[in-house]
């Protein structure tokens, strides 16, 4: 393996998160990062779930008398789009798709990639070789291009967006987990467990996994941001959510036609993405501090 392949951005970012952990000074300050991230994410999830309470409009209700109303118009806090649909309502309902991707796509790839990585690292030999060559192969493609190609073949839809991410995104977890497992395998506690005659599955699940999982969990926060941006990007390109379904990316795409007169159409949904993204980023940094205190 060349060094270049090993320094994939996923790992670079993981190291950044770890380094950020070492940098922080007091425990209180470290906890604060995690808590503020969780609070921000909590606010976002609560707002999206409580969309019917926070907005009196359904996301596709037309207000033909007030198209392209600017933000702070009475009755439309964030304004309306070209059909008079309430932007606040559309952002709240649209977030459901983006957050569903953040959790639904990320959790599946986290679990699958972790299993592949731990198996490859623990068994070594040809199993490791075969699995890691498959992983290398996925890394050879530009991620977005491969996702688009898969969606092109399956047909653009929200479900196929999930499928494309499931097919491709587990590889980062597999690579991180394999590296962790290879190191853990040589540790005393694993040797002790094997000497006691424990089976492979038990050693992997009860001994190696609890001691190495923090790396993939921290990375999954970075990955969740990536998946939200991906969902929005595909919506923007017309390959994810289809109009009139509200979704942050499709809203930005719609709004781009009106940037000459109405800046808020394209701008506001993007701010929602940034808000949720920063929340996940803070949670990732905070988790890095809390989960790996020994490495400070």
């Amino acid at each position, binding site marked *: 393996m060349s060094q270049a392949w090993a320094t994939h951005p996923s790992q670079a970012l993981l190291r950044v998160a770890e380094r950020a952990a070492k940098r922080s000074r007091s425990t209180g300050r470290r906890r604060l990062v995690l808590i503020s991230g969780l609070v921000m994410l909590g606010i976002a999830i609560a707002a999206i779930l409580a969309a019917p309470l926070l907005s009196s409009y359904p996301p596709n209700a037309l207000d033909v008398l007030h198209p392209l109303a600017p933000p702070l118009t009475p009755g439309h806090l964030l304004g309306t789009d070209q059909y008079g649909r309430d932007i606040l309502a559309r952002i709240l309902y649209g977030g459901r798709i983006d957050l569903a991707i953040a959790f639904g796509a990320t959790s599946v790839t986290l679990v699958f990639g972790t299993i592949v990585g731990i198996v490859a690292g623990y068994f070594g030999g040809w199993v490791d070789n075969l699995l890691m060559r498959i992983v290398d192969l996925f890394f050879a493609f530009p991620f977005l291009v491969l996702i688009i190609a898969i969606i092109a073949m399956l047909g653009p839809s929200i479900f196929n967006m999930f499928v494309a991410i499931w097919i491709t995104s587990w590889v980062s977890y597999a690579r991180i987990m394999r590296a962790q497992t290879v190191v853990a395998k040589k540790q005393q506690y694993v040797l002790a467990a094997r000497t006691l005659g424990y089976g492979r599955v038990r050693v992997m699940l009860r001994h190696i996994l609890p001691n190495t999982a923090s790396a993939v969990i921290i990375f999954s926060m970075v990955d969740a941001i990536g998946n939200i941006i991906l969902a929005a990007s595909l919506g923007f390109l*017309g390959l994810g959510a289809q109009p009139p379904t509200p979704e942050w990316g499709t809203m930005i795409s719609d709004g781009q036609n009106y940037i000459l007169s109405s800046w808020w159409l394209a701008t506001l949904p993007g701010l929602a993405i*940034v808000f949720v993204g*920063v929340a996940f*980023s803070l949670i990732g940094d905070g988790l890095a501090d809390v989960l790996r205190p020994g490495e400070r």
Partner: protein
Amino acid sequence: MSRFGTLPRRLGHLVLIAFGITLVTFFLLRLIPGDPALAILGTSYTHQRAEAIDLALGLNKPIWTQYVLFMGRLFRGNLGYSFFYSLPATTVIGQHLAPTVFLVIYAAVLAAAISLPLGFVSGLRRGGVVDQSTRVFFTVSFAMPAFWLGIILLIVFSVHLHVFPISGFGSGFAGHLYYLFLPALTIAVGFSTVLIRSLRAATIATLQAEFVDTARMKGISRAKVLRRHVFRNAVLAVVAVFGVNLAYLISGTVLVENVFSLPGLGSLLVNSVSNRDYPVVQGVTLLFALLIVAINLLTDLTQSALDPRVGQEIGE
């Protein structure tokens, strides 16, 4: 061990990857649910046309024969036929190549211009004004979708300040530089995040190296040590990151071309999806992946040329 001790092994590895890439792109077509001819033709489906397409795609043969034929055509530079443009896919791809190549190189240069000073200064003065503000800005920009940032830049610089054009590719070298400034900047901002972080870390690590102390003790001035010893070694560490992240540059290009309506491979890819122009999708995917393999090889070579230690650390 010779200077290029592990190079043959790496070359072998890359050949294997390239072979795998052809296999993956070949099987992409197999993901089409149901009958590909039906998917391509849609409402204009007739039995004769379907048979013609099956024949053109080779779908009427056993799958391993199809792969052999696919590889055979590939070595002759044939990526199949674009039903939408009624042209060979290679011709269509060739027509869209220039804007993408220009944009990727432009963005890489801009990213280097942004990252080198900011990353180096952040590493030298940890916790200083530059370090703090850079970190805040790039933490936020990490959560920004590239296409959204592009639209914000359009609103500010094109719609309100009238500094840059809203879309188009321009003509002549200077025209391209002017028209592609905002698209390239959009990609460069996202790309800089990773570069600045790694350069900052590399600078901090290099400052602690013993050879820096030695140089200072020999009486060399601080400025000269920073320039000749610290900067050179720190930049070296970034070369690897730069090469690997070109994959990200390409992903950025796909999005940004669609924001700024540039006639490049990214727009072609997305349009071909809605046109169900499968051979073009296949071709663009293959081209991008092979490009990344080639660039990774170049990065490896550059690294071992710049730093003879690199080739020797690698052998696992």
